[in-house]
């Protein structure tokens, strides 16, 4: 059997098995729903590790794979459209390469989803019966969407050569459709998980009041939809970039190195673009949680989970530093970029100071002597950095700096020949400084107003940053159209450490997702459904941060082991040929100035 056919066979078999398990699990749940719940055990014990840990690990793995297969197609179809409109075969190749990764992970996602369902039905029957009593109609929608999504993606992937040329628009349409279906799956699943956090549309006894829409449209549903959608793109970008880095490091020819260097760059660019807006979506979600229930909000931000945010700040700081570092290293393959090297220390200083401010805890760990020297548990100077005014200012300045890095990278080998170039650049620099000034002004002013007014300032800060980004790019694109080139990008000629940075970014982001997932889930404390259905199992205790960190680390390691295995499987189909879908892979090395 040829490797490609073998892979297809494995994928179909695994997928069919996943669906079968899911259907069996749902059918198993139905009798439980119909019976008197009192006759059912509320919990069963999973052997050795316990039920909660089993559900936690499988849910996290499922979410990781699901985020990947939902995130990657979003930018894969955009890249395909770029290739289609510009008739550049490299983009088409890249898009196919990305969908191939998604395709390889599809069956695993379905299997893990089915396994998760199995665990709920088997080990948390009462909880599952309750969730079914609320959300049963959505199960059918979910299953139908999943079938539709699966067949659309299969058609998208296998029809790549068939639907080319004049039929390309149909193929692109399939890509768009699979994204719409994928996003719909995401929002349906989000309704279940957000209902557990912020239940709505139910009576005091927990029964559904009116239609299921009331339960779906709960307080945190839409913020989570937006947050997860953006995070999935970042996640997909980092995993695709890590895959490219892995292939780059194993490459044996310059051509292969160039190709995967370019792929890694695009993956990181996608991740970075979405990452820039991710903190804003996260902030909105945090505000909605706080507004829904102050106890929950304080547990998350000021209570026992407050130190989790310091870990988060450190991880996000690493993501910012790593992304910028990768761009700076990438400038080495661009002739003419030397003129921008002098800005690196300044940008690095802003990022480092921003990182330090963001990572300054509100609740300091102090010894008794230190507390006495400080005159309390609040430090009179560092205390200013522990509050949201300082942190919002820091993160907005870090985003602006990262954007500046990208702008410099973008124009590294180009010299504008437009007569209005000086005016254009003056406006661009002005936009940067005005945005930074607004961010700092509201950051400082925030200390002199009451909390509820200060919270509103974040909108002005975000608006200033996004406005500056929009204005700078609006000027940049026409300013550098038809620009004089100082030399072609030498794809593949980048230090190996840059590729390890891409892998580090993927691991860091995966770990971060696990951590924040724990935070989102953990703030329910001893409730399955907050305030409605109490967790009375032996695991009804919120784990300590150290324990949670260990679990997340192990799950992250397992995820990457599975990903490597799946990608290796995917690579089997390419053995002995450079192309991915019948055609030879396009040349990348020594690309034109439009490579970006």
């Amino acid at each position: 059997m040829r490797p490609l056919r073998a892979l297809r066979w494995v994928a179909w078999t695994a997928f069919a098995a996943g669906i079968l398990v899911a259907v069996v699990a749902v059918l198993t749940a139905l009798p439980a729903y119909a019976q008197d719940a009192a006759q059912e055990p509320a919990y069963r014990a999973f052997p050795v590790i316990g039920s909660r840990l089993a559900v936690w690990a499988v849910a996290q793995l499922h979410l990781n794979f699901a985020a990947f297969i939902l995130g990657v197609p979003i930018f894969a179809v955009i890249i395909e459209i770029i290739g289609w409109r510009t008739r550049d075969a490299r983009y088409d190749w890249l898009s196919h390469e990305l969908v191939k990764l998604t395709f390889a992970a599809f069956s695993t996602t379905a299997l893990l989803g089915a396994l998760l369902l199995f665990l709920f039905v088997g080990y948390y029957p009462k909880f599952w019966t309750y969730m079914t009593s609320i959300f049963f109609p959505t199960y059918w929608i979910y299953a139908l969407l999943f079938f539709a999504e699966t067949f659309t993606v299969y058609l998208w992937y296998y029809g790549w050569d068939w639907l080319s040329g004049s039929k390309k628009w149909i193929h692109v349409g399939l890509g768009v459709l699979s994204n719409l279906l994928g996003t719909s799956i995401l929002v349906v699943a989000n309704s279940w998980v957000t209902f557990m956090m912020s239940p709505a549309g139910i009576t005091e006894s927990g029964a559904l009041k009116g239609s299921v829409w009331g339960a779906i449209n709960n307080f945190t549903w839409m913020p989570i939809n937006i947050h997860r959608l953006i995070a999935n793109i970042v996640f997909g970008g980092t995993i695709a970039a890590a895959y490219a880095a892995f292939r780059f490091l194993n490459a044996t020819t310059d051509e292969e190195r160039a190709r995967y260097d370019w792929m890694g760059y695009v993956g990181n660019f996608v991740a970075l673009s979405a990452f820039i807006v991710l903190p804003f979506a996260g902030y909105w979600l945090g505000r909605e949680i706080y507004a829904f229930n102050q106890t929950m909000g304080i547990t998350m931000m000021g209570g026992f989970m407050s130190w989790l945010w310091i870990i988060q700040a450190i991880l996000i700081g690493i993501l910012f530093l790593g992304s910028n570092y990768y761009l700076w290293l990438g400038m080495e393959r661009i002739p003419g970029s030397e003129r921008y090297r002098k800005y690196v220390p300044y940008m690095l200083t802003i990022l480092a100071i921003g990182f330090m401010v963001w990572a300054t805890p509100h609740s300091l760990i102090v010894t008794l002597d230190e507390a006495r020297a400080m005159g309390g548990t609040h430090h009179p100077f560092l205390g200013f950095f522990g509050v949201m005014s300082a942190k919002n200012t820091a993160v907005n300045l870090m985003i602006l700096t990262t954007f500046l890095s990208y702008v410099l990278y973008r124009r590294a080998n180009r010299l504008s020949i437009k007569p209005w170039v000086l005016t254009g650049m003056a406006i661009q620099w002005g936009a940067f400084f005005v945005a930074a000034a607004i961010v700092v002004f509201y950051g400082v002013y925030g200390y002199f107003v009451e909390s509820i007014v200060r919270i509103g300032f974040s909108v002005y800060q975000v608006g200033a940053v996004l406005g500056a980004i929009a204005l700078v790019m609006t000027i940049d694109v026409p300013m550098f159209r038809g620009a004089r080139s100082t030399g072609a990008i030498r794809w593949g000629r980048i230090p190996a450490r840059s590729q390890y940075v891409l892998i580090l970014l993927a691991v860091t982001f995966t770990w971060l997702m696990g951590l924040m997932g724990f935070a989102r889930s953990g703030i329910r404390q001893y409730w399955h459904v907050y305030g409605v259905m109490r967790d009375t199992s032996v695991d009804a205790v919120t784990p300590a941060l150290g324990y949670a960190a260990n679990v997340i680390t192990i799950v992250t390691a397992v995820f990457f082991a599975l990903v490597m295995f799946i990608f290796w499987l995917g690579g089997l189909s390419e053995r002995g040929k450079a192309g991915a879908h019948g055609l030879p892979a396009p040349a990348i090395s020594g690309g034109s100035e439009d490579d970006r």
Partner: protein
Amino acid sequence: MSLFRSRFVQAVLIVALAFVVLRFGIRPPAPWSVIKIYMTVVFLAVLIYVSADADSWRSFVGPIRSTLVDPSRRLVRAALAIVLPILLGYYAYTQAAATPEAPAELRAVHPAPPGSIQFRGKEINISGVENPLRRDQASFKKHAAAGGETYIKNCVYCHGDNLDGHGQFAPALSPPPADFQDPGTIAMLQEAYLFWRIAKGGPGLPRESTPWNSAMPAWEDRLTEEQIWQVIMYLYDATGQQPRRWETAH
């Protein structure tokens, strides 16, 4: 001054300078837990600085490499082979040795409040509740003054006459009494939160993040509901802080 052009020397100087500034430039001294975080960031940034381009990286690695392999650096190598293990050993000793000082505690400064509390047999909502005395703005001064009297009689011994946590008993307490002048304390909280903390005190703190070790008494047995709300009004009035208002879900 070619010495200072060496990336290696620059890196060492930046790290050393950052440590000096963070350790001795911040007054009162920053806790070690924070300095460790800051120095980790500085170290990462310096690594990025020296390796952001090939020339810089060569300049940084050059002295390290020559120290490790250059025959003329034999003596330096030998000295490092002795000094580095001693320094590591000393560090291990400082981390493991017993000290008379109590270990640092990881405390959550703002524990999550319950949705409601029992106050002398009456259920009082904590979530979403405003100070009922503020409805009558004409009596604001009267209530704040009454709250001031209650404060002087009961709270001043720990929280101080400047409301800054420096009362007479404060040096004996760990954790120290709250500093109400600090913008990170009552200014960040709704009045209902303060009501819960004053009424239930240290004994009523939730179990999360224990041990709390707070010496704050539960005032529900000594003060009436009105007196507690009055004290709260006084705290905000005297410090010039505004209580946090409730948000609504969007």
